[in-house]
């Protein structure tokens, strides 16, 4: 089984770290993983994206042209990556950053109200964990315990006090995500 995922949004939205936590979660389950970021000037202000692959077998290319799941957190990312979702695949977006909604009929589309919720509940920093939780609801590719173990592994010890808050955000994301029909 192989999951090929792209996460894209504005620099600073936590796109790369969301991918990193997902990759660590795969590592916790003994899966093969790869994490390949867009790096460089687009990280500040422009769009940033990261390709994450979780697989039971050796991974060939870390660079892909189509994905099982695309998470798009702003309009430029939606325009760039909607067309790269495989037929039958999943597109997840946060309505906060989207002015023109996705139009494809051959994929499953989910909306998650993560940014507004995170801000309203005074937890803006956990925005990306809400989105990650939403994705895991659509495709439980790793167990929640593995995500928590992955988080612990990827966070420096001084941030471990934030773990419960992150777990709550993941669970909030699982409640929030809704399929758009």
């Amino acid at each position: 089984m192989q999951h090929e995922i792209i996460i894209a949004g504005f620099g600073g939205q936590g796109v790369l770290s969301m991918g990193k936590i997902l990759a660590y979660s795969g590592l916790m389950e003994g899966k093969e993983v790869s994490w390949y970021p867009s790096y460089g000037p687009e990280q500040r202000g422009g769009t940033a994206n990261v390709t994450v692959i979780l697989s039971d077998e050796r991974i060939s290319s870390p660079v892909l042209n189509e994905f099982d799941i695309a998470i798009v957190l702003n309009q430029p990312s939606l325009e760039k990556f909607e067309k790269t979702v495989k037929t039958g695949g999943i597109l997840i977006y946060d309505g906060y950053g989207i002015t023109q909604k996705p139009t494809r009929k051959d994929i499953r589309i989910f909306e998650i109200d993560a940014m507004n919720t995170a801000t309203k509940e005074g937890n803006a920093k956990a925005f990306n964990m809400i989105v990650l939780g939403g994705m895991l609801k659509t495709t439980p590719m790793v167990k929640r315990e593995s995500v928590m173990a992955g988080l612990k592994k990827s966070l420096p010890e001084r941030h471990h006090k934030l773990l419960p808050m992150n777990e709550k955000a993941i669970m909030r994301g699982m409640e929030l995500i809704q399929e758009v029909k």
Partner: protein
Amino acid sequence: MAEEVKLMKGNEAIAHAAIRYGVDGYFGYPITPQSEIMETLMDEKPWETTGMVVLQAESEVAAINMVYGGAACGKRVMTSSSSPGISLKLEGISYMAGAELPGLIINVMRGGPGLGTIQPSQADYFQTVKGGGHGDYRLITLAPASVQEMADHVALGFDLSFKYNNPAMILADGVIGQMMEKVILPEQKTRRTEEEIRKAQPWAALGKSADRERNVVTSLELDSAAMEQNNLRFQKKYKTIEENEVLYEELLCDDADYLIVAFGSASRISQKAIQMARNEGIKVGLFRPITLWPYPAKALNAYKEKVKGILTVELNAGQMIEDVKLAVECKTQVEHYGRLGGIVPTPQDVLSALKEKLIK
């Protein structure tokens, strides 16, 4: 104790592997996309554990000359940079080759020419394997295709470089440097004592003892006849390296009608393209040079009458293709596909190019 599997970037793997190999010194100057090498070393503070020196020099030129100095003392020393920075180091690399000094240089390539871009590229192939610096010298060149190989090639590069008293290079690119994968790091070795160095590198300039002549480390020889002898000695050494140190990987080549030849990140992308092609019934194999110099020409030559065509996939305008054509003596069709200036092709791009250029 079970070895721990870690998740890290290729650049970080190089830094950890260097500490564990017992490297004596790293001298560098930051440049994207390889800055994590020095950043990781600075985070790890190996000067407090193994005694390894980590120093940010005032420039790339200074860094390579620090490597020259450290190497002249028989130490295991290294530097890293990316394309424009490597251009600056070439004078020093030629001097190291001329003085027969070991040392490891890492190039995490980005798009050029000039300052170019910071995105991945393989456009320094010519620069690395065809000279770059002046004079008749060769640079042992390793092309890692995974984070694991980034770690492994540190030891391999140092071993080869000290075996032949010749500089070695790890020629990686932005994809391999920036991506994270699983890696198992080597065991921690202790740094060598000066006594051990004196024994293994009797030429090292570590201070003259009363019982021998002074050691002189130089690439200068104003007597042309003597300089020719030096060159002949180098050439003999290069021939030995070419006969003994070639490394490559073959994947699904046994029944292949077509071959993709690619190194580094291009080989990873090509692997996926090959799976896609095979799903469509096109029998393609991957030939991946691991040493770019010495080039696996002999192994590749075996395919000259076995396959209907070869596609080289490179993140450049067609550089390694020249070595592939020489290897197969142009007895089979050889085409090139590549993207330039920091654009990374997708597996689909490679598959389309394969069909368009070879199968038609």
